[in-house]
């Protein structure tokens, strides 16, 4: 089972694969991981939410990453262009469609 895709994307049923090992060192590196993250239910103190690198990178393309975070600070030169600190512009106003679209702008929102 590959570690790609969220659990919801996996709909086809299949048998649970069985693998027997003689030595702990032969454990596969992805042992006890689940697609789209790993819940180690036996961690002392309870479960912990892990995400592996490839899954985190995959989430980068989710439509949900296209909405601005609700609590973003306005910092000129970091989250808003330099010199805009005197204007009382909200983040939402910053996001107004701004024609003409720049073909190089790979983060142009699809709205």
């Amino acid at each position, binding site marked *: 089972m590959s570690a790609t895709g969220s659990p*919801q994307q996996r709909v086809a049923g299949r048998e649970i694969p069985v693998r027997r090992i003689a030595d702990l060192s032969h454990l596969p590196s992805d042992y006890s991981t689940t697609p789209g993250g790993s819940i180690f239910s036996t961690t002392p103190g309870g479960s912990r939410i892990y995400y592996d690198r490839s899954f985190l*990178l995959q989430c980068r393309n989710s*439509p949900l990453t296209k909405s*601005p975070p*609700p609590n973003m600070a306005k910092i000129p030169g*970091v*989250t808003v262009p*330099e010199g805009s600190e005197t204007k009382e512009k909200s983040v939402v106003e*910053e*996001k107004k469609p701004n024609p003409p679209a720049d073909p190089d702008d790979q983060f142009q929102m699809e709205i």
Partner: protein
Amino acid sequence: MDSEEVNHKEDLEKNSDELSQEELEEEVEDDEADMDPGPLIKHPLQNRWALWFFKNDKSKEWTANLKLVHSFDTVEDFWANQALQLKLVNRKKLYNHVQKASKLQSGCDYSLFKDGIQPMWEDEKNKDGGRWLISLNKNQRATELDNFWLETLLCLIGEAFDDLSDDVNGATINIRNKGDKLGLWTRDARRSDAVMRIGHRMKERLKIPAKISLGFQAHSDTATKQGSTARDRFKV
């Protein structure tokens, strides 16, 4: 893009002045209604994280130069934060330098820490801790720095340190003309076994060659150092 979406876009442009943030987010989600609902779940993180920005302005107090950019507790909000920076920046070509750490001015820092921990030695959760330090040379700002920083962020939010994740407080990247530095901060410099295992994991995840050695310095040593660098308590 089908015609319905085009109309939708025109509506949105007309109304965009009145749209609240919440409504705007709903619009985006409506557009995706035909998609597989699977990816439209925000994936919760184990911890809430805060991204900080520091800009060296000697006319102000150190703490006045430190700004909280954003805190988040889902994978998607982490990426939205990164993407929004890029988007706002790209709108005005002048500012396409701010998103990447490698394009910050000398004297600036980014920090990502668990919510409630300030990115400074003095914080109660940091004062007994220290940092694994990667010192970059000038060439590496262009070739390695952004990758190292992104990999470090992914280690933090994905809890890559397994049962030692509670020992990790955050990370800081310092952009300096004399040499950039990336530090992974742990909570207790006396926990040698935890510190060593975290160092090995960091080295492995950032794919740092075995021949390059990384040093760990306690914040208390750095604060009282005599020379330019504090002594290494540990090495990997």
